[in-house]
């Protein structure tokens, strides 16, 4: 019975963290697109993006710990840290391990952003677009009810939300956003470059 409990906990925590991380990605896209509404200022988007990612990390931690201690899976801590080291569905679990590594990198660099510097932080943050699909694929491949209709529906929902957000971002150019500034720069100003002569 307690085995079942752990297994429920693993799957439950995994699904919740996936839903939360999906929301985090969507909020991240809204953030960089500078979306806002009269009653929804931008610092709310930024704040939710940050706080929800930390909460999702808690559920992710729960998902990993319950999976590792569960005697039924016989995963052992090594499998949680080293990709493809598990004996249970090594490929799918391994992709999840990679996703976790990426997420940890995202969170840690964000917490030390001021010390790390803007350029390095931004470069690493692009990995979010790698981490999230890996999480989805990990879920599809390794869950025991991965092919249940309701689980697939959830996967489709998450993919749709992120897909729509990214499409919207690519198609919308907002005034004052960095794209517009680049356009203005190209029209209005020629970069002042030259050559040294002896």
């Amino acid at each position, binding site marked *: 019975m307690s085995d079942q409990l752990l297994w429920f906990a693993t799957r439950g925590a995994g699904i919740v963290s996936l839903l939360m991380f999906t929301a985090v990605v969507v909020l991240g896209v809204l953030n960089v697109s500078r979306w806002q509404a009269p009653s929804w200022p931008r610092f709310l988007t930024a*704040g939710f993006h940050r706080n929800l990612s930390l909460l999702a990390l808690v559920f992710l931690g729960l998902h990993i710990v319950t999976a590792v201690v569960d005697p039924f899976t016989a995963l052992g801590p090594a499998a949680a840290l080293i990709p493809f080291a598990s004996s249970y569905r090594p490929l799918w679990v391994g992709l999840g391990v990679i996703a976790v590594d990426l997420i940890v990198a995202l969170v840690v660099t964000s917490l030390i952003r001021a010390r790390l510097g*803007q350029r390095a932080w931004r470069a690493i943050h692009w990995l979010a677009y790698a981490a999230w699909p890996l999480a989805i694929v990990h879920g599809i491949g390794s869950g025991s009810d991965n092919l249940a209709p309701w689980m697939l529906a959830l996967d489709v929902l998450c993919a749709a939300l992120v897909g729509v957000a990214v499409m919207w971002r690519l198609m919308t150019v907002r005034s004052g956003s960095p794209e517009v500034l680049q356009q203005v720069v190209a029209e209005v100003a020629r970069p002042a470059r030259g050559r040294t002569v002896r």
Partner: protein
Amino acid sequence: MSDRDRLGLQVDRIRCDGAGLCAELLPELISLDDWGYPILAPDAVPGHLRPLARQAVDACPVLALRLVPRPAPVEAS
């Protein structure tokens, strides 16, 4: 507030690209011009607004906003 504790807001004008989160979080000291770029109050940040000012500095997506020492202006005699 002794001279050593006085802090003021400063923005790196080249890094700033008009995201505007600073003005949302600290409207008492930061407003936006017609193009979305911040206009900062020049005086020292009052004590009760310091925590908000630090939040605004953290919130800047490009780390352009800073809190820097701001000694009191010398009165001309």
